[in-house]
């Protein structure tokens, strides 16, 4: 390809790749936090009292309506004002995590609601407590139904780590921009990171779809 300068990749490739480390930390941290709190939100929305489920919905909707960049800057520059200063990496994880939480709670909630109500009644009729109902009937089915949505959210979180550029986290994209400024070539580093994001996203999707097939059960959302 004529626009890509192989020499730039040879010389600066390792520097760009050194950003993978932070990208991985932000992705896993943000997605993990999103899953933990997203599950709690979804559970509250489905099984909580009227007030707590309203509060959960309000949290979810407000977080979904703020652009991630704004959220990240608010956390990084705003929290110190109230006496809580976070490092750039911590701020980025928190922002990505909150955003991911809002989306994951929505994914998990619709998965929980997709379980036929009759099964819940059947579990209660056997004498299960609410906790037993949740762990043996709801969670295993909801997770299977939610997997495609969760994988999709994981890849979105991965790509959104590039926004941490704005607060100076040295992740993949930031490194690429730095290289671009030094090498006076924007296209090559950007195509290079673009390809890296693509490869990771593609790998994650295909690994998950294999997992998905392995745990598929006839008649449940995860089949076919």
């Amino acid at each position, binding site marked *: 390809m004529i626009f890509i300068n192989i020499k730039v990749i040879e010389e600066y490739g390792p520097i760009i790749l050194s950003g993978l480390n932070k990208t991985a930390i932000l992705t896993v941290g943000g997605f993990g936090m999103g899953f933990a709190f997203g599950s709690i939100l979804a559970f509250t929305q489905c099984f909580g009292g009227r007030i707590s489920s309203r509060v959960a919905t309000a949290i979810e909707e407000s977080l979904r309506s703020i652009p991630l960049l704004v959220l990240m800057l608010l956390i990084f520059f705003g929290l110190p004002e109230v006496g809580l200063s976070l490092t750039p990496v911590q701020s980025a994880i928190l922002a990505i995590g909150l955003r991911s939480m809002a989306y994951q709670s929505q994914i998990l909630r619709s998965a929980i609601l997709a379980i*036929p109500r*009759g*099964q819940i*009644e*059947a*579990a*209660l*009729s*056997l*004498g*299960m*407590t609410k906790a*037993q109902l949740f762990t*043996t*009937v709801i969670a*295993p*089915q909801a997770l*299977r139904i939610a997997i495609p949505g969760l994988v999709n959210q994981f890849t979105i979180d991965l790509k959104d780590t590039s926004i941490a550029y704005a607060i100076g986290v040295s992740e993949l994209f930031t490194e690429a921009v730095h290289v671009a400024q030094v090498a006076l070539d924007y296209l090559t580093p950007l195509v290079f990171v673009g390809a890296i994001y693509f490869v990771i996203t593609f790998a994650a999707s295909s690994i998950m779809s294999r997992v998905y097939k392995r745990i598929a*059960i*006839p*008649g*449940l959302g995860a089949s076919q």
Partner: protein
Amino acid sequence: MSGEILRVDNLWKSYSETPVLRGVSFEVLRGEVKVIMGPSGSGKSTLLRCINLLVRPDKGRISLEGKEVFPKPYDSIHRIRQKIGFVFQSYNLFLHMTVLDNVRVGLIKVKKLSKEEATKRAMEALRIVGIGPELWNKYPAQLSGGQQQRVAIARAIAMEPTIMLMDEPTSALDPELVGEVLNVIRDLAKQKMTMLIVTHELDFALEVADEIMVLDGGKIVERGKPSEILNNPKHPRTRRFIERLRRRVEHGHR
């Protein structure tokens, strides 16, 4: 062994001001099979759901083996429910579990039996309903409706309930599958399982029921021996209702 298993006294239930049950009273003795019939919307499902507390009644009294279940439960609700088997119209098997797991999950999680003991009991229950080992590792979606309903019955009887409640257990089935499920229930009746069944299968009711109760507008409008109710109903509405059921059977619908 005789004695009273279930007693329902003056039970009332409304959904947002609309009364659905209006003072229902009856009892079921040990080993008895009682059948409830009645037009759609008469409150049959609501009545069964009140008995195992899936729905909270507004007023009245329910007791199980002489111990109060409503309004003041003698034990926690989930422990009381263990004693009441429930079979639903739409089977409601757990879709992510095999046949065997569906039947033993209650024994393991709720009754805290060891896995071996639970498996043994589950296999026994599956044999009773005629589900052979070749189906034990299949998932519900791989079974016919009749097989699913028999697994659901096995799941309930494996818990060794003191009474079984069945809400139209055959009305979601294709006509050719109704017989296999009714046969299982017939066998349970022969084993003197105490049962309260909502069904509109007239011949079946005539054969197994000790008493038929007709529910209409949230009240028991007529009750008695199956032969009396089915052949010589007193209440004009009951007469029309039974005639309608007869016609449906003649036309092959269920």
